């Protein structure tokens, strides 16, 4: 599956036609606690990562929020 992830082209090795955000976080080993996630520009709220799906050609942003200010 080919998507745009955080403004870069990303090819995900999978047989599925759709993936959830939870699956993406596992595949990419994203382990940060605080995230802002968007699919095609629309916010995916925390608590819905198991339900929110994306497919080939979609734009996904997983932005890590880290402390400091």
């Amino acid at each position, binding site marked *: 599956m080919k998507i745009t992830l*955080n*403004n870069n082209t990303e090819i995900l090795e999978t047989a599925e036609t759709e993936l959830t955000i939870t699956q993406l976080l596992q595949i990419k080993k994203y382990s*940060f*606690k*605080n*995230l*802002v996630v*968007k699919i095609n*520009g629309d*916010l995916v*709220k*925390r608590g819905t990562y198991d339900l929110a799906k994306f497919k080939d050609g979609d734009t996904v*942003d997983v*932005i*890590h*929020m*880290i*402390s*400091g*200010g």
Partner: protein
Amino acid sequence: MKFTEIKNALSSKAVGIAGCGGLGSNCAVALTRVGIGKLVIADFDVIEESNLNRQYFFFEQIGKYKAPTLKENLLRINPKANVSDHIIKLTPNNIVDIYKDCDVIVEAFDKAEMKEMIVETVLSHFPAKPIICGVGLAGWGGNNLIKTEQFRKLYIVGDRTSETSENDPPIAPRVGAVSNMMANVVLEILLGKDK
């Protein structure tokens, strides 16, 4: 554009700053100097001596609330500045109320969960409002690692990896660099691209 034209163009704009610490205080100073029409600032905290390594406060202000004290300092730069200050712990409910009339929102919190909270709140309630977020500013050096990335209306400024900790604290030069870059993004949004 001449400075008088820049100032004139900014005089009708309102910017919301969430948090008056290292990012918020320095960003507010930059925006006041260029003549933003209105600043809306909020913070629940008081100034501690340890804040003086990066925040725009003075020794004799230790113990005072950050939001009204920042207003006081901004008015010393420009007595005509229009600053609305709130001593309040920001939550999804009051963020919507406090910042609804702002043209741009600057996220200037310390904690990652608060950054996530305000970005989620702004993106879901005001999808058309630009929000600028500071992410990754601990330590020193690494000038060229600090950058701005845009995700539609969400702008991320910082190196995106340096989390603050006891052994990698936020200190003036790098926090100042990120906060001024955030102010610079505000101008780019409000005035259009220059460079």
